[in-house]
């Protein structure tokens, strides 16, 4: 089990300028915000289940940019059908990273399906991802960091992280219009 915040920080350290990052609501948004206030970040604060389709649309619209989605097990479990849609389109510039802490962290730590018998890597493979991996050790993060930056093929990674009570770190704005305007400028630049 990894610590989520240093993991995201490591994955994004000295990131290339063509890398756009999207975070699903809850802990991933606080993690991405803690890793730096960057115009190429878009942080969901609501609309659960929508971070994965948003990232796919972005990847289709900006094939020259690299897109990484950081989202939680709870968020991806709400939009499992998206795994099939993403896998069938297979955009080469998209990397889906689930930070799987096996709980609904924002609502009191109730267990998700991954605390039980559900395996998201198997589900991604079954959906059609030809590249999918589980990451649970620090030594495996380096490969994921390389995939996010350099691999020219769709990838899914399920990063097993601790369930931790961490201080919230807010994105630069809670206002959606302010956030999307800055992000869009960075995305189309």
């Amino acid at each position, binding site marked *: 089990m990894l610590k989520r915040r240093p993991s995201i920080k490591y994955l994004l350290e000295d990131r290339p300028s063509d890398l756009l990052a*999207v975070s699903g609501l809850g802990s991933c948004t606080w993690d991405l915000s803690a890793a730096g206030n960057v115009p190429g970040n*878009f942080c*969901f604060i*609501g*609309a*659960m*289940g*929508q*971070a*994965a*389709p*948003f*990232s*796919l*649309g*972005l*990847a*289709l*619209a*900006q094939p020259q*940019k690299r897109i990484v989605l950081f989202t939680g097990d709870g968020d991806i479990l709400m*939009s499992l*059908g*998206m795994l*099939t*849609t993403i896998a*069938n*389109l297979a955009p080469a510039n998209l990397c889906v990273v689930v930070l799987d802490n096996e709980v609904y962290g924002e609502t009191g730590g109730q267990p998700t399906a991954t605390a039980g018998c559900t395996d998201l890597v198997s589900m991604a493979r079954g959906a059609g991802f030809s590249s999918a991996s589980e990451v649970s050790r620090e030594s495996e993060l380096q490969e994921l960091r390389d995939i996010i930056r350099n691999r020219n093929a769709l990838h899914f990674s399920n990063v097993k992280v601790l369930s931790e009570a961490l201080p919230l770190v807010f994105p630069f704005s809670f206002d*959606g*219009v302010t*956030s*999307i305007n800055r*992000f*869009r400028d960075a*995305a*189309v630049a």
Partner: protein
Amino acid sequence: MATTQGIDWHADIFSVLVGQNISIVTHVPDAGHGPLLKMCDEAPGIKLVTLTSEQDGVGLLCGAWAGGTKGVLLMQSSGVGNTVNALSLPASCRIPLLTIVSMRGEWGEFVPWQIPMGQGTPGVLEAMGVRIFRINEAHEVGATVEAAANLAFNTRQSAAVLLSQKLIGAKQFKEG
């Protein structure tokens, strides 16, 4: 060619989409959009994305717009119910969203299970702040879709065109 009142209104919608530089068409398949889907699938400048649930089309088109690309969501009225919380995304961020809805559960409906969501569709969309453009007549289709697209993309609003069951023709079911 599928026509109503002698007008190929599916082709009229397609022309507007091309004129608006729509390059992503997302949908959960519906017979009411059948001829339009075929045109979109065959168009070189359009990517047709088949979804497993209509809500995914909302997020996908918002991400595409953030990347500088325009799209449209084609769905049946029953799919509108699946999009409700997803509509928070374009509403909160004022991202333009254009959807074209083929109506069921109204004019001449045969299937009782279509009634609740068909009748609920305008109210659900209005409750989420979506501007509604309803079409009953074939000759109104092109201009109305154009008007909805202009409102959506120029003023950054969510707009829904409702193609009435009177326009599409009520689906008839026969055993055997």
